[in-house]
């Protein structure tokens, strides 16, 4: 439906008498929703009945409400639109809590509609009752319990507005079952938002000028960009690239920000932080001007706070005023939308700053020395597949495709971030802030629904993937040919790595003794299974995976004890990285063993 048509439809539906369930579906349509992810239950049956009788909004049935949430997150992150989930009361709502908090921490616009027991039963411990707005209050940007059907439409419109504007985030609209049955009037979408919610989008010009002045004098600058640039849209990403080109500054990015600046770009330093590259972290530590755009100085980024980039003046661009000075004191805060501010910066830089890129030459020389350290190197192996090698081959063999990557959480996630190059925004979906194991498979489903022709790969770990493996069934049902590429080392690899580093190599419960046969599992779900354990056969196996037009589980057996480096050990600063050649698997195990023995 085009815009004019939808406006006419909205006019026609204005102030009509409808049931609450009809209002929900109409409001979804008016907010441009084409797909929703959900799971039916007693308290949402009227809405499901309404969905059944129309074709405009397509419902994707998942197998667990958490899957619906992550699928909606993947959908949102890959399209820039709000993701929508629909779940029932009680357990439906409590199962939605994990994706809601995940979306809150990663600033993903997510609209969650929950059924609730009838208003007359609220508070009576009714069947499948829970205090949904109470439980979800701290894990949403805002939430509503709608007790009057006449307020339902306006509330849903407001929910979409709050979820998608300012710093995006999750919202919950809780609708009691009697409100879904009741008849009331439909209010069309209005542009005038409530007065108390007015996110600042335009940056203060004086602050932008101060930032440009600081940047123009910088001898050792670095741009540190984050997921906020991607949330600000593709135009913001273009402007970021333009700013990098104009200034000649090196750029690094957080896990959430990968793809905003292309990994193939000349000024790219790689990801920063705990498992970031040596050059990125050293540049952050030694820089004299830091330009942070849409990132929030997370503890996985900064390392030891009192040793974080000690000699730099810091510029921080963020749409959320509470992000400013939260963890790190900054010199020039600019509050607003990253895209608008980047536009001002690019214009101002062109107008005022003399782009003398040769002044940065010594800095680039230093960066090249750090780069030569080759911090992502690993020891190749002809007998077993190194996990890094598997990611590199996956990247090499999918470069000619429109490929979207999701991940679970753990070592495989970090290896994917390190070794898969992202050249475009919105193509990398991962759980950054909350670190939710089980995110990747349902997220891939959501991405595939949004982009049916694309190649969507969930780079998974054997432990994480089992947290939401049931969504394989949803993928088969909805003809979503997602590829689940499991780096199978039989361990919770990241847990084991920390046990090796911090807990005397006592591998407490981080080994999975009874691993399912993933090939048979794929076949049982009606998908396709592939197993590969030889480096020489990997390329052909990956090609086979790509060629199959249905969901595939790829059981990639990798070196069991490989660890993820480089790494900033906890309590250390950026310039105290543990590099792979200093931290071979044996060295880590042995060094800790001796220390561990002393401790015990």
């Amino acid at each position, binding site marked *: 439906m085009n815009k004019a048509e939808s406006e006419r439809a909205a006019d026609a539906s204005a102030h009509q008498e409808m049931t609450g369930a009809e209002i929900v579906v109409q409001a979804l349509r008016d907010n441009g929703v084409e797909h929703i992810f959900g799971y039916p239950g007693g308290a949402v049956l009227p809405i499901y009945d309404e969905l059944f009788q129309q074709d405009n909004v397509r419902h994707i049935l998942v197998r667990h409400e958490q899957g619906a949430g992550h699928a909606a997150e993947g959908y949102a992150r890959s399209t820039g639109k709000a993701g929508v989930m629909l779940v029932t009361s009680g357990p439906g709502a409590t199962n939605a809590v994990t994706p809601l908090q995940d979306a809150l921490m990663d600033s993903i616009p997510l609209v969650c509609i929950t059924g609730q027991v009838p208003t007359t039963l609220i508070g009576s411990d009714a069947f499948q009752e829970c205090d949904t707005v109470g439980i979800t209050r701290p894990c949403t940007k*805002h*939430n509503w319990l709608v007790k009057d059907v006449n307020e339902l439409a306006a509330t849903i419109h407001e929910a979409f507005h709050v979820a998608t504007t300012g710093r995006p985030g999750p919202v919950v609209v809780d609708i009691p079952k009697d409100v879904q049955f009741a008849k009331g009037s439909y209010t069309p979408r209005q542009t005038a938002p409530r007065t108390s919610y007015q996110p600042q989008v335009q940056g203060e010009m004086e602050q932008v000028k101060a930032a440009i002045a600081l940047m123009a004098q910088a001898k050792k600058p670095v741009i540190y960009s984050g997921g906020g640039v991607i949330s600000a849209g593709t135009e913001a990403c273009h402007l970021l690239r333009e700013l990098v080109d104009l200034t000649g500054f090196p750029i690094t990015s957080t896990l959430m920000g990968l793809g905003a600046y292309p990994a193939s770009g000349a000024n790219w330093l790689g990801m920063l932080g705990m498992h970031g590259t040596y050059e990125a972290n050293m540049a952050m530590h030694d820089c004299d001007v830091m330009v942070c755009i849409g990132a929030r100085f997370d503890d996985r980024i900064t390392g030891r706070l009192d040793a974080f980039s000690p000699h730099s003046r810091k510029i921080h661009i963020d749409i959320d005023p509470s992000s400013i000075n939260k963890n790190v004191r900054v010199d020039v805060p600019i509050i607003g939308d990253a895209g608008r501010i980047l536009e001002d910066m690019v214009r101002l830089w062109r107008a005022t700053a003399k782009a003398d890129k040769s002044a940065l030459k010594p800095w680039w020389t230093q960066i090249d020395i750090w780069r030569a350290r080759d911090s992502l190197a690993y020891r190749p192996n002809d007998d077993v597949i190194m996990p890094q090698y598997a990611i590199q081959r996956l990247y090499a063999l999918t470069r000619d495709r429109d490929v979207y990557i999701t991940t679970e959480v753990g070592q495989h996630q970090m290896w994917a971030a390190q070794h898969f190059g992202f050249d475009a925004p919105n193509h990398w979906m991962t759980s950054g802030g909350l670190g939710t194991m089980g995110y990747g498979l349902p997220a891939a489903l959501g991405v595939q629904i949004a982009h049916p022709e694309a190649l969507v790969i969930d780079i998974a770990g054997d432990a994480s993937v089992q947290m939401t493996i049931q969504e394989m069934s949803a993928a088969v049902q909805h003809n979503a040919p997602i590829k689940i590429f499991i780096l199978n080392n039989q361990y919770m690899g990241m847990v084991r790595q920390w046990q090796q580093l911090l807990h005397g190599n006592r591998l407490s419960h981080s080994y999975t003794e009874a691993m399912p046969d993933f090939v048979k599992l794929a076949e049982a779900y009606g998908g396709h299974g592939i197993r590969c354990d030889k480096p020489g056969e990997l390329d052909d196996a990956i090609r086979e995976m790509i060629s199959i037009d249905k969901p595939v589980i790829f059981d990639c057996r990798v070196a069991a004890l490989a660890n993820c480096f480089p790494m900033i050990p*906890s309590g250390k600063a950026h310039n105290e990285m*543990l590099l792979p050649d200093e*931290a071979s698997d044996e060295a880590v195990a042995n060094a800790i063993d001796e220390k561990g023995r002393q401790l015990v």
Partner: protein
Amino acid sequence: MNAQLQPTGSAYFITKETESNERRTLAVLVDNEPGVLARVIGLFSGRGYNIDSLTVSETEHEKHLSRITIVTSGTAHILEQLKHQLERIVPVHRVVDLSIIADQRGHDRPMERELALVKVRGRGDNRVEALRLAEAFRAQVIDANTEHFIFEITGRVSKIEQFIAIMTPLGLVEVCRTGVAAMNRGPEGM
């Protein structure tokens, strides 16, 4: 680089808070809608901030606006965060740190008043003494029989604290306090 391979003890960086705490009075203007108070106080409990006193009432009926007065304490850094976090709540219109404004205007602190109801039970000398002291504190008797008084007292927090302290040995039964209501001196609004 060359970090020593040694157990560092934790997956997080644990530092000691060394800054000293300050006391602040915040005025928070919010839409008076269901759950708004839970959002505000939930922020305090969820993020580990302190509430020393809390006062809420609708102050502008036609606009459905409520004013929440919160007395809190924390380090300067935490208090700055707290203000921004409060402003982030969707139905919150404004957050004003009254203590900072008072300081900027050269005042010691904002005008702060509290009301308390104090019930005292007793006979004989204690009863006479309680009434005499209540007069000295300008407390009103709002209920009494031959065995008890209920006093209504208004004033600064310190005055109320003192009144309660001296009533304790005279037969204090119960106390109800409103929490602090505050605004700044001068003709300007919040």
